[in-house]
Structure formats: structure tokens, C-alpha cells
């Protein structure tokens, strides 16, 4: 039996699918905040979860089912030009800049997605690449450029990496 088949052998059927979807939902919701908004993320995730429940035979063998569900959520929910994200409340989040959210929302969608998935959701570049349907190197570029823009907008010192990407862009 191949390793792939070995991994698929536990657990089976509905139990495996249920566990997968239960685990996936909070990750999906979090991943979708910056494209579907605070409330819309849950609806979009539920769309994907509902699809996942009906297509377990396709989902279970996948290596990255959450990434696939992310794509399902994006295609099954309507895009929002500027997702509704609540402002930072300094009393609750003293370590977060109040300007972070508007700066994040000002980023182009691809950069915003990549920055959010990598840093807020802690997905690997490979996971993000698969979820967004882009190359890993492209993910790296989006993240670097997005972070550079955030730093600039919030008055943070640019990093060496930021400078490199700026030179690349200008060239």
C-alpha cells in the first residue's frame, strides 16, 4: 500500500469527513476575513463546508483539503470590494496599530490574501500557492510587497527585504 493510501486509511467515511470539516471550518473562517469580511467569512466558509459535506469522496483524498475549500468558498460566495473588518479597539488590542486594518484593506487583493494567509493564518507558502492557484514564488513576492506597503503605511522602518523588492519593482 502506498503512503498516500496509508494516510487515507484513517479514519474512514463520515467520521473522517466530519472531523476534517470540523477542523477546517475555523481555519477557513479565519482565512476568509480579508476577502469576505468579518461576518461574510462565516457564510463563505459555510458554503464551502456544505459543499465539502456533499463531496466528501473528492475531499478526503486531497492533500490540502482546507486550501481546496478556500477556493470553493471564494467561488461560491460573492466578492466584496472592501470587506467589512471591525476597527482595532486599542483597549482590547493595545499591541496592534489602529491603522493596521485600513492599511491592510488598501492592499491589492492578492497581496492582502497572501499577507493574511501567511502571517495571520500561518499557512505555508505552498499552502497559499495551492489555495490561490499561483506559484510559490509569486506568493513570496505578494507577501514581501504587501508587508513592505504595510510597513510604509504604518511608518515602520523598511527591512532589507523591502528594499530588495522595491528595487525589483522599480527595475
Amino acid at each position, binding site marked *: *500500500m*502506498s*503512503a*498516500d493510501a*496509508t*494516510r487515507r*486509511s*484513517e*479514519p*474512514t*467515511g463520515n*467520521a473522517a469527513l*466530519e*472531523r476534517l*470539516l*470540523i477542523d477546517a*471550518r475555523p481555519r477557513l473562517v*479565519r482565512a476568509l476575513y480579508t476577502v469576505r469580511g468579518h461576518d461574510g467569512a*462565516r*457564510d463563505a466558509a*459555510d458554503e464551502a*463546508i*456544505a*459543499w465539502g459535506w*456533499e463531496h466528501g*469522496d*473528492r475531499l478526503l483524498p486531497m*492533500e*490540502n483539503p482546507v*486550501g481546496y475549500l478556500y*477556493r470553493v468558498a*471564494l*467561488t*461560491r460566495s460573492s466578492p466584496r470590494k472592501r470587506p467589512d473588518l471591525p476597527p*482595532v479597539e486599542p483597549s*482590547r488590542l493595545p*499591541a*496592534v*496599530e489602529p491603522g*493596521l*486594518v485600513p492599511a491592510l484593506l488598501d492592499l491589492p487583493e*492578492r497581496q492582502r490574501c497572501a*499577507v*493574511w494567509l501567511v*502571517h*495571520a*493564518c*500561518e499557512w*505555508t507558502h*505552498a*499552502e497559499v500557492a495551492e489555495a490561490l*492557484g*499561483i*506559484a510559490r514564488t*509569486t506568493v513570496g513576492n505578494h507577501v514581501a510587497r504587501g*508587508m513592505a506597503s*504595510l510597513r510604509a503605511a*504604518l*511608518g*515602520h522602518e523598511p527591512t532589507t527585504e523591502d528594499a530588495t523588492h522595491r528595487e525589483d519593482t522599480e527595475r
Partner: protein
Amino acid sequence: MIDTPLEEQLRLYADELDATGPGAGAVAGSNVRRLRPRRTHLWLLSAAAACAVLIALAALGNRDPVAVDTGDFVAEPSPDVGPRPTGAVKTVDGADSATGEPGERVRRYLLPDPENWAVVEYWPDDTPDREQVDFARIGEGGYPDLSFRITSSASERSRESFDDELAEAIVFSDAVRGVRIGDVDGWVIEGAGSAESTYVLAWAEGWVYHWQAHRKSDLVVELLADVTTVDVQQWQAAIAARHDNVAEAVSATISEEGIPTTGLEPPPELPRYILPDRWQLEWVTDRGIFTDEQRAQEAGFGASTMIDRPAARARIQTFEFSQEFTREVPLARGVVPSVYVSAFETAGTADLRPVASHLSVPVSIVGLEGYAHTDATGWVTSIELYGPSVMVNVAVRPDSAADLGEFAESLVARAGGHVDGFDSIDNRYTLVSDNVLAPAVTPDDLLAPATTWTASWRRADDPGRTTIQVEKLPLDEFGFWLAFSNTQVDLAAVDVVESEGAITARADTARFALRYDSRTELLTIVTSTVPGTSATDILEDEIVEIPLADWIPLVTPYNTPVLGGR
């Protein structure tokens, strides 16, 4: 300016969003199991669709047979329903849902004829206002056929909310018709989303009822003809019988399929680990501690849910194209571009159509339609194709400069069909792994000894989770594992070392730690999403190996149920 690194600020803000959203933290199976997605975005509809909603709503109020085909359906008279210039909807019990005024709420227990249908699964909810039940049809053998199921749910909802859902269903479906279910009027929604997705909605006295077949949609209509309203004692008795019903189906399947219950090949001995007491065991998947009888039951359960068993079963085959030398060096397939072509064939009616994104391009390859998924530059990253009973995926790993689109165009399906394999005239790649001779999935496959276990722990003070997975994996399979897992594992983080004829691998990141040794053939993985913890530290310092005799009583209450029931 705040000194906290921006990366950390993003994570803190995401944590806050998780903690403050509606239903935050409540991740119940019932949430996941909801059959139909909640559609609340009427504002998103186009102007034309919005008009259709208004027409449909009017039809609901006036029972206009022109707008909605009600067939022989005879609706109860609704004398209170008149013009609704403000959009308010009068409910059948006289409550004005626009004002949120509740009418009398009466739960009906709608049970199909137990001669034809049996409860096989029950999904309790945290709240008493929702309940979900799976019914299976009694097959020719006189026991429930677990491959033909209908899920039924009842939830307490306002008429306004129901009307919203029904109006959207009318917009998004091919046809809607009225139907009588027991003593309740309902609506059959056909072709919503896909041709197979017929479902039924009904509302009565503050409760919404919902039926949907897992596979064959016409089963819903068959079941509804059998439904009567019963009292709560009859309902509870039907639910209480679910374990017996499943056991009966499994027992019959074991007998019919000739599944052995003794003398099975034993699983390999694997080390078992636990975490210190501050960690609370959450769930365990360890089939290796099942008895022979339990393994037979599990195989029987799996077989009983297969479509059209035993004549035609789903087959999944994977064909790998890579550079010739990787035949001798499977580990290299983790770094050398390899193309994986997977074919899935089923005798069932599952909807195999792939999901397209705005970057997907329609393609026609090997006689099948589908999509090439591209990145922003138009580079093809994966291809999904489908036919009436077959699905083919083409993917390259690790992602690289390999031109997947060109390669896919070079594929030719063999004469026996897509699941029998492919040939390619693209000389950059050689077929290095041909699973064409692998048999179809059979119940015997489900009896294969478990070579892995996984367990998850949580801490009372944090919603994060730590999981440990141990797997017995020969070296060549570890190579495949690496190649297939590069979406979960950043290959750049895995350090593979060859020394004195042995190969070891390790990865150490905050969230993920991996150890592999070709001498023991053991792969151990620790993942942790608990802030402030390190997967490597947990793997190196915290896990404690315990004897199997101590492990079994400790984890059995948490282990995956043999028959998948609850």
C-alpha cells in the same frame, strides 16, 4: 508607532476576529453538518434575480400557479395573506414575521414508514431548537442500505427566515413544486446548484423541516410519500434504534461479502506517546488497537456504504510521470518535477464537476471536459477533468517550471478507459509509477492493518491544539510521502541526511516538527497551534512513550467509533 512586529499584530487581530464573531468558538458537528448553506445575501442578487424573488414571494403568498408549478398540490387557504406593499410576510399561523412576533410553535415529528426506512444516524445539537437525523432505506435484504441515505433536519426558525431561504431557492433552482408531507405543506426544490441536488423544505408553526438525499435525489420524494406525523415517544424510539439498525446492516454486509472476523494480519508495533497532564486528550484515531472483530465491523461498515456494491466499486488510480532515474531513487521525486495523474471512477451518481475560479480556463483533454487552473500569469498549476462517472486530476509536484498544460495535452488514455492509465508522448517524462494493475477498492482493502495512529490534545487555557502522528513507513513510501505532502510540509524545512546506509529526516519549526529514520521506518510528526509553544520542544521534551497495555484503556473512550456512529 507600536513596536510589536507587524506579523504578530496581524495574528493578534485575527485572534480577536475569531473571538468576537457570531458563534465564535462554537464549532459543533451540527454546524458542519448543516445540509444547505445559509444564504443571507439577498442584496447580492442581480436586479433580474431580485425581481424573480419578488415574483416568487408573491407566488408564495397568492399561490400563483403561473409562477410556481404546484402540480396537484392543494395549499391550505391563507385568508390573511394580502398585498404586501412593505414586504411584510404573514405567516400561516397569523404571526407577522416582519415584526418578529412569534406565533404558536409546535414541533412535528415527521417519521417515514419504519417498514421502509430506518434511522441510522442522529446528530444532537447543543441547543434544543435543532435536530438532524439520517434515514437509510430498507433494502431488498431486509436491512438498512447505508449507501442510500436521506438527512432530515428540523430547526426552530421564523417564517420570515424561511421565506428568505425559499425565495432564494426558487431563484437558484431549476424548478419548484409543492408537496404534502404528513400534515405539512412543503416545497420540492429541484436542480439547485447541480442536477442531483433536489431537496425539500417545509415550514409549520415555527419550525423548518428539511430533507435531502446524499446521492440519489429521487429518494427524497420516495421517502416523503412514506412520512407521517408521530408522537415524541415514537420519534425517540426510532432514534434509539439507530445503533441496532447500523449493526444489523454491518452484520449482513460482513456475511454477504465474506469478510473474515478472525486471524487477520496484525498491525505493526508502533510506539505510543502521551503528553503531560496539563494537556487534555481530545480525540484519537488508532485503528491499530481494534480487535479483529472490530476491524471486520469497520470493513463491513465501509463496504455497506459503498455505492452499488459489490458489482462496481469506486476505483482510484494514480500514475506518476517523472525523470527516468527516479525509478531507482524515489526520494528524488520530492525535488525533481513529477506529474501525477489521478483517475477516479465511480458507478454512482456523485457530482464530479470541479470548481472553477476566476483563474480557471475550460479545457478538453483525454476526451473529458474540465478546467485548467492557472496562476495570475496564466501558468497552468493543475488540471481537473470530469465525465459522467470519472474524474481526472493532473498536478505537478513540486511546483516548478514544468509546463503542465503542454504535458497534459500529450496524454492519451489507454483503450480500457481513464482508470486503466495514460501514455504520454512528452519525452521529458517517463511513466515511473503505473498503478494500472492495482485492484479496485474492495472490503478487503478496508481490512488492511493500520500502520499509523494520530491523537490530538488541547489545553484548558487555549483553543489551540497539538497533534501527534506516528506512521510506519518504508523508505520508498517516505519518498512518496514527502512528494505528496509538500502542500502540508514545506520541503525546504525538511533536512534529509544519508549516513552509514541510513536515511534520517527532520524538520523543526514552531508549528511543525518531523522525525524519520529509515532503520526503524518510523515517521513521527508533531504539530502545534498553541501560541507560545514549540512543536519541536514538545517532540523533544514533552512526549512520553507509554506501553500499549496502558495506552489502550487510556484512549479507548476517545478513539474513532468502530461504526462511525454517535
